[in-house]
């Protein structure tokens, strides 16, 4: 089920909201689990079993780690504690192996065999035949959440959960199940046991949900048409390539941040407080700052569970650069099993390492703020070309057109205007509106926190029904991050 569908908006959401507020608190987590399993299994009920399996394993591992903590802490000396400590580690390793195993199998098996077949064919060996594995939606998100629980319990950053229903609720919570934010267990542990339901919190959630809905339906899906046209061209002109890359830059931001706003908003409507996921990233003055503002829940997850365990910045400058590059490389791979994502991750990692080498400053630090923001934005655009391209060949072709100019054939095909991309008035309006929102307006969370009725709330109350009306015109349009 997707948030921008009639079945969700007009049937699932009102039914769950109604039941949630009718039931006493002790039943509410159970209701959310049932609703989340229905939400997740709506199109593929068999994938619910996979999530349930992952949930059971991590619940068991977390309880095991908790028991071992007690035994280790209660042991009279280190020798007595050692077997329990080893057992505790085994629980953690089991959790890691199961989660990474599921992720590896479902997400990377096809890529691995494909890559192997390319090698085999180059050696004249017959390729391996296999049936392609279908990627369960959101597996990257819920396995990361699941792992964060085991690690947090192991590190004693969070207590092991008592009730299975609370843990199942944490893993499956439908607002952020399939595309984040990646909420860590320690963030939600207390809220699972007790959370406030106030008018203000509900209103804040409703406002964020509406803003996210508008961002996705009216902006992201509209500029997506421009990006799709550009990336469908076999030989784009410079103008077409830039137009497509800029349109995609705005599409991915409004799509993903729109989803995050809706997720955070829905969470608030059910009493949860999720962390911010997008903090006006295109206002960043460096790539380092960009990654503090873009997909914050992933970048902090990678920082806490990958970069810091690798040594972070504590093992000398060289090792810091390597750690940064490696973390972003794996971050790229997390987004998808394709060379384009790996190169995108490497590109981001390289910039982070470079800026670290310069002292966390961008190369263009001497420029005025506007110039720094503009340069960072251009660097982001270049990165998104790798992210959006179907293949590395297409990415190079696109970048070649952007920076190397148009080929004669492309110019001839594009005519006097230099572009074959058809842009209707709504698309044109959104393409102009998108940078205004990104660069000049506060982000959704800041708007939600502003006191008083204010123009944003009035405008949202008017535009939201229009965006819902727009829903009647659009065909199925999943969020970009569903594929990850």
């Amino acid at each position, binding site marked *: 089920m997707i948030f921008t*569908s*009639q*079945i969700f*908006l*007009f*049937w699932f*959401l*009102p039914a769950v*909201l109604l039941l949630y507020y009718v039931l006493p608190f002790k039943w509410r987590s159970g209701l959310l689990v049932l609703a989340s399993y229905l939400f997740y299994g*709506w*199109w*593929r*009920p*068999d994938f619910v079993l996979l999530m349930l399996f992952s949930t059971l394993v991590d619940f068991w591992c977390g309880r095991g780690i908790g028991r071992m903590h007690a035994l280790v802490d209660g042991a009279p000396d280190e020798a007595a504690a050692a077997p329990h400590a080893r057992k505790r580690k085994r629980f953690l390793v089991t959790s890691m192996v199961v989660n990474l195993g599921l992720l590896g199998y479902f997400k990377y098996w096809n890529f691995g065999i494909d890559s192997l077949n390319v090698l085999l064919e180059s050696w004249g060996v017959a390729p391996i035949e296999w049936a392609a594995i279908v990627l369960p939606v959101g597996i990257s998100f819920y396995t990361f959440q699941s792992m964060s629980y085991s690690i947090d319990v192991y590190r004693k950053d969070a207590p092991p959960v008592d009730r299975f229903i609370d843990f199942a609720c944490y893993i499956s919570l439908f607002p952020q199940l399939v595309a984040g934010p990646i909420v860590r267990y320690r963030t939600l542990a207390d809220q699972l046991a007790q959370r406030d339901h106030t*008018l*203000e919190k*509900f*209103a*804040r959630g*409703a*406002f964020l*949900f*509406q803003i996210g809905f508008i961002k996705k339906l009216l902006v992201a899906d509209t500029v997506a*048409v421009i990006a799709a046209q550009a990336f469908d061209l076999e030989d784009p002109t410079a103008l077409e390539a830039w137009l497509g890359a800029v349109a995609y830059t705005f599409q991915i931001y409004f799509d993903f941040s729109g989803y995050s706003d809706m997720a955070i908003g829905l969470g608030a409507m059910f009493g949860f407080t999720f962390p911010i996921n997008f903090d006006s990233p295109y206002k960043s003055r460096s790539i380092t700052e960009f990654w503090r503002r873009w997909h914050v829940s992933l970048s902090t997850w990678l920082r806490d569970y990958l970069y810091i365990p690798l040594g972070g910045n504590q093992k000398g400058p060289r090792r810091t650069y390597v750690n940064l590059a490696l973390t972003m490389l794996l971050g790229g791979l997390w987004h998808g099993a394709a060379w384009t994502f790996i190169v995108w991750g490497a590109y981001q990692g390289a910039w982070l390492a470079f800026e670290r080498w310069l002292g966390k400053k961008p190369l263009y630090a001497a420029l005025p703020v506007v110039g720094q923001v503009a340069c960072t934005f251009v660097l982001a655009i270049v990165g998104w070309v790798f992210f959006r391209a179907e293949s590395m060949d297409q990415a190079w072709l696109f970048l070649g057109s952007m920076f190397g100019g148009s080929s004669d054939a492309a110019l001839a*095909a*594009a*005519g*006097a*205007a230099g*572009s*074959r991309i*058809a842009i*209707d*008035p*709504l698309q044109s*309006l959104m393409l102009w509106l998108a940078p205004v929102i990104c660069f000049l307006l506060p982000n959704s969370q800041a708007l*939600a926190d502003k*006191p*008083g*009725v*204010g123009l944003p*709330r*009035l405008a*949202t*109350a008017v535009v*939201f*029904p*229009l965006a*819902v*009306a*727009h829903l*009647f*015109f659009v065909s199925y349009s999943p969020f970009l991050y569903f594929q990850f």
Partner: protein
Amino acid sequence: MNRLSACLVIGSLLLVVFGAPAYEITGGNWPTAGMTGDVTLESVLTGGAAQEVEDTLEDRALLSERVRPRYNELMFLALGVTTPRVLVGRDDWLFLATRIVGGRPDAAMARLPTTCAEIKALVDWFGAHGTHVVFEFIPRKQSLYPDQLPDLNPPFEPVYPELLAAMQAAGLHVVDLSDELGPADGVFFLTNDDHWNHAGSYRAAQAVAEEILAIYPDGDLPGTPVEAEIRTTESYRFAGNLVDMLGFQRDGFMYERFSVDRARIRSFVPGMPRPLLGSDEPQPIVLLGTSFSAGFHTASLLLGLLGREVENRAEAGLAGGYRMVDLCREILTGKRDFPELLVWEFPEDFLVQSVPYFAQPVTSIVDVERGFPYREEPLAATRALSGVRIVKEDADGFEGRALDRDPRITYTLDRPIPGDGSRVLAFPVLVSGNCNVVSAWDTGPQPGSGGTHERYLRNSEFPHWILVRLRTRDGKPIRKVHVSPRGAPRFHVGTPQLWTPAEAAPAR
């Protein structure tokens, strides 16, 4: 957030999320209302049932019917557009965008000689059996009235003259309608529709009638003589198919803005009020046409101009070359004789944007004509389904929904049939949405050990007949036949027939 703003925000959300279902329920539109298929365990596990619930909800949404027109009017007033499918040109002329934007159709133009040769092969087959084929080849309004188009990039480049020249070069008898329908003597196209107007239809029919009369200089036209007069009837307000696509409120102010006066021109028996629309029975003169003929009475006009009965085989719908398959299916199975004169009407885009839907059925007729006449019988086989959910079954076949990307119907034949190419598989398919129907046949247990055949179909109100000559590489007998309607969420697959040359013994 103060209480007032909280109430404003919550109110606008709840109004939508609770108001919409309340509105639907009071109109009797529950989520499962209108579902036609049974909910089975398989359909739930594969997501088919969920998909159907969503589709049915969206198809039947009462709110959508109310909201859409108002939203379209608002969008048009604000931005001058409601859908990218319709271009709004000068003086409120409307155009279908798909045939105009995107620049010159180079791939289709490169294929043009092949397409014309394929048509010529079919015309030669008709000619060998005494049928003369005249083409009423219609230019689209953008080809003749490009000044009415909005500014486009790249600019629209008419290709009708090139298409006409290619058909003439292939030896086809084509009537050039560019002068008849051009802007010199008036406007011969509806500004709010994708078709010509009745005056345009009449001028084209006159040009075609002149060509036909030139074939029979002594006036010895085939067919039953008819006495008729051509009359123009009273005009009425008409909103064309492009106005419907803009999606305004019917009879609303925007609908009225784009409506035009339209007067029908048809043939009548002198003194009688009922028009003559052409015959449904086989006649020596046949008009095979599209919505240009069906909606604008070309058969009636030809009847009046020629003074002969005309068999009217014009039908609206996105049929491409499948109307010709229908006619030829009757000839190939001995249900009717060849006509003496065939007027084949189609618009220029059949050779450009619609070429797969046109050329494939045409070549399939040429491919199966060897062996004619055929005896048709139901395919004796056991049916198995994969990735298909049957919604409804009747004597003519079944209506199904695709559960995955490769829905497949497998027919295991009661008796193997020869793979020497002497047999033809024929089956009708009706699809929702563009579709690629793949037919495959096997000589043994391994799928794909025989051959495959692909055919593009578009959504239509009428089933399209697919004709496939069953041939295996080594002539081995065929044991299984598969039909895969890929890309269409819903389809109706008719009972397959096996065509055997009339003189051949039944397969054993």
